[in-house]
């Protein structure tokens, strides 16, 4: 099976990531560079959080579930799964008695 030919966006993205990794390597070798990189990462994360908050507000206003709502459901499912596992263990232990 031949590999799917990459489009211009994919190639650009790959080259961008490779360039960023090369730049990060150079920057990380210097403690001051590390500090600058950390601050840049912090700013990017803060921007992403703010964007998600705005997105959440818009979704809520439109009566649609937000990412936070999905996360809550996923958390409840995980809790249920764990409780079922615990119950199954108890049943097994009872059977063995």
């Amino acid at each position, binding site marked *: 099976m031949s590999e799917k030919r990459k489009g211009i966006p994919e190639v650009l993205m790959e080259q961008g*990531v490779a360039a960023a990794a090369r730049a*990060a390597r150079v920057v990380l070798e210097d403690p001051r560079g*590390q500090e600058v990189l950390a601050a840049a990462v*912090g700013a990017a*994360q803060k921007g992403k959080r703010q964007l998600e908050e705005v997105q959440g507000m818009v979704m809520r206003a439109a009566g649609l579930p937000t990412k936070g709502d999905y996360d809550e459901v996923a*958390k409840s499912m995980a809790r249920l*799964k*764990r409780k079922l596992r615990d119950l199954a263990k108890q049943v097994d232990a009872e059977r063995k008695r």
Partner: protein
Amino acid sequence: MRFASQAWLDAVVREVNAHADLGRALAGLGADLAAVVERDGRHFPHGAAAWGRQAGGRIVEWRVLPDEDDVLELEPAYVVRAPLPLWKDLLTGRADPVQAALSGRVKVKGDLEGLVRRAGYRYIVDEALRKVPTEFPDEVSR
């Protein structure tokens, strides 16, 4: 010791906790972290996950989670996800964790800034791992 087993995790944590610089490395970081090996259909069909909590400059609680989804319930301050080959590269020093995180190959949830600031303390984990013989599942099943 088999990678991602409870015995392996116990040994790694014992070595990490014995390091004199650990307190400085952990100061100011979030309370807990989960490391997840993504499902791969071969070695980890259900994924694998380990969780640890720090307090007072050392790791005080840790365990291998029976189900990767337990991470969702625990909601740790940091979640680091990667497939097995990448974990292997990271743990054997063939890949740089910061570069891997910035390029998106390792998915990090949580305050990445704090982790980048502490990248210089990587030697603590490297030294611990050198002392713990690690058997990766792709090597065992060959």
